[in-house]
């Protein structure tokens, strides 16, 4: 077990380092120039020489390899450098944005699981074939709608037309409602399908007719046998939807004008603010790797049938 643990942690660290390095190289290749983007405003009247000076101030003027090691060391110590766009430490910007996105993403994921459960169980419980069919086609519809479009329609209908939820002002909880819904809808789809498949599998089990004959209700069978079997696939999906949650938050936060990692990503990309972009890549990779590591480590605990494959 310890060897398994160590090897998984080692692999995780390797993936992180590789993500950092890939990100670093990719961002070095960008043709744009964040200093130029920020300081070209004609009202500032900066001469090309002055801009060159500012650029030198930011880059430190080290050769690439030294700069790479320097940056890597900085990241290892938790110092991500300065945002060129705002001149503030990247850590500050991340610290401001992260809690917002964490709230949005975690609430979004929970709601997605809830929606998925409702769809899958209702479909599993239903005996009417067309209702069942309609329910099972919901996930496909959910992933077929562009997220930004969904968000805008939700705002128009629920906030502006019906006046149910404010998008400007309002309590933090109120402000979360529509963004969370927007984020949850597409993410609920794959989870609902995984759950629905688990339910189908339960029904094909030979023991089902037996317990049914003994008088167990459909509901009881579903609950008793599916819930247990569904935990693992749902957990796996959780790990894999991290990337989608972040991608979804880019769009959601832009539509709803929320501050967060997603909006920061969009702004950093637009301003080619490479220190911020690199930090976001590493942050996303860290979350992804950590969540999947935890899930991998949880698997043997939750499911004793799985052998530890070191």
């Amino acid at each position, binding site marked *: 077990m310890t060897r398994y643990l160590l090897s998984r942690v080692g692999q995780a660290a390797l993936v992180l380092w590789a993500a950092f390095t890939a990100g670093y190289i990719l961002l070095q290749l*960008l*043709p*744009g*120039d964040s200093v*130029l*983007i*920020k300081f*070209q*405003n*004609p*009202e*500032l*009247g*900066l*001469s090309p020489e*002055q801009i060159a000076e*500012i650029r030198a101030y930011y880059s430190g003027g080290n050769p690439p390899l030294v700069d790479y090691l320097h940056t890597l060391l900085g990241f290892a110590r938790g110092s991500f450098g300065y945002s060129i766009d*705002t*001149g*503030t430490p990247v850590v500050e*910007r991340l610290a*401001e944005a992260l809690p917002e996105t964490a709230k949005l993403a975690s609430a979004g994921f929970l709601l997605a699981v809830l929606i998925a459960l409702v769809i899958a169980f209702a479909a599993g419980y239903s005996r009417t*074939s*067309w209702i*069942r*069919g*309609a*329910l*099972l*086609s*919901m996930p*496909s*519809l959910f992933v077929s709608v562009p997220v930004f479009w969904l968000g*805008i*329609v939700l*705002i*128009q*209908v629920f*906030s*502006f*037309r019906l*006046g149910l939820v*404010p*998008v*400007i*002002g*309002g309590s933090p909880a109120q402000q979360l409602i529509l963004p969370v819904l927007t984020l949850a809808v597409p993410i609920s789809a794959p989870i609902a399908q995984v759950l*629905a*498949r688990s339910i*189908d599998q339960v029904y094909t089990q030979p023991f089902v007719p037996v317990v049914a004959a003994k008088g167990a209700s459909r509901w009881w069978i579903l609950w008793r046998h599916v819930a247990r079997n569904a935990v693992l696939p749902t957990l796996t999906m959780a790990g894999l939807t991290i990337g989608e949650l972040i991608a979804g938050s880019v769009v959601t936060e832009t*539509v*709803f*004008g*929320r*501050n967060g990692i997603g*909006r920061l990503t969009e*702004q950093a990309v*637009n*301003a*080619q603010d490479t220190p911020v972009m690199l930090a976001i890549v590493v942050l996303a990779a860290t979350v992804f790797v950590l969540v999947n590591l935890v899930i991998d480590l949880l698997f043997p605990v939750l499911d004793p049938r799985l052998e530890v494959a070191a």
Partner: protein
Amino acid sequence: MSSSTPRSTIAAGVAMLTVVGLLGACGGGGGPVQQASTDGKPVYGGTLTYLEHQPPTCLYLPAAGFYPNGGILNQITDKLTWQNPKTLEIEPWIATKWEVGKDATEYTFHLRDGVTFSDGTPLDAEAVAANFDVYGLGDDKLKLPVAEFVNNYKRSEVVDRLTVKFFFDKPSPGFLQGTSVIGAGLVSKKTISLPYEEQCQLKNIAGSGPFTVKNQVIDKQIDLAARKDYNWAPKSSQHQGRAYLDEIKVIVTPEDNVRVGALTSGQADFVRYVQAYDEETVKSAGHTIYAEPTRGVNNGLYLRPGNSILKDLDVRKALQAGTDAKEVVDTLFTPSYPLATSVLSHLAQGYVDLSKELAYDPAKANALLDKAGWVRGADGIRAKDSVKLQLGVFIAGPQPLSKQTLELIGQQWAKLGVKLEIRPADAGTQAVDIKNAEKTALAHTMVGRADQDVIKSQFHSENRDVILSQDEKLDRLLEQESAEPDTAARNAKVAEIQRYVIEQGYTIPLFEEPQVYGGAPHVHGVAFEAVARPAFYSAWKSNQD
């Protein structure tokens, strides 16, 4: 896994159509709006929710021309003088009176006593001198660039605690107006001695304005609070003392439809950048549209003679004649956007009506292109020596409906056999390519400022230089204009420049760009400086309990 039945697919489709139908049926709705029961007497207190289109960028004062920056800086800084937006006269503010020396090479300002910055330091002659030394000369060590509203600046002299004198190398007639513009906001000596990077950050700006920064979430929200001890409004202002509002919440809301929807549904009080097609929505919901003129160089296309195709005067004149600005305005805009009749807005100083020279004449355009040797190819695009008549332009983020405008002009030019290559504006590519006349043959832009110097800002090769000018004659004309002390002679020079720029085909003016704001019916007293940046000092809300 069971397959979805046809009925379920239909059901899903119906669900989608219902949403669409709901939107359609409710088009233009917004519910009855509570009419403000106002007896016209301002009340103190309340928070104004103001929705901005973009986050502020760098808040170094001379960079305040960018509207999101100006919207903040106008509330937290004061200027030496105040330009009455109706008469365009310069009136006293922090300076109670002033003398202009002969030839406009010397200015003396007498300051109001008892004014303080928000960091507690006094606004005195020394502080003012420190401000203008930077705005006029820049500071290489601190990387502070010269401001575009100060020309020919030499030095300052502190005469006594409340008197400051400025000297100029050459006549600088625009300087008095220059002290009233948004970029000439006064900041404390501590602020002005910070390096550029730090002056860019809002938290470091200490002004003497009626509001101070209470809280900032970068790129998202700025909370401004009224300064209780504020007592130095411009002399001609009816309202004196502290601001009526307690607080202003500036919230960045990039989505156009969210800003307008939030206003009409009562979630916001005031919004900037209402698009032309939304004006009717705002009005029909009982709200007010404020279309404020910017009095400067018109929104238009600026043609770069450095481009290998546009270096030919005939081609530039052909494009000028072949562009139907009226169709652009009629199709995409509203009466808030008057059709351009010259390089400058009809409200600008020195404006001259050149609508005859700018008449739409496609026959002339075609003739000019034929004459220049551009022959139509099989695809309808003209070519010469196997080079296609194809010109690149970036969609201009800050210009209203830039993309639609360019698409429409692209349609018009296609009829002439000219291909307009419209590029989406990602900041990175744009920063690199915008200064390259070969890749970016045209610029879609405008600039606002209520002084004759505005035309120099736009065209001089050392200012904005939108046409990447290689025209020494133009530079010389602009320099003569900015150094001419006599107003009548200066206006005549401005007229000469307008004629020259049109003659040379450097620009295709489209419309006089306003800043369009939407305000709730319970918001009163919002004022605008001469170039349409809002001032919330006298604003108040009548819907308070």
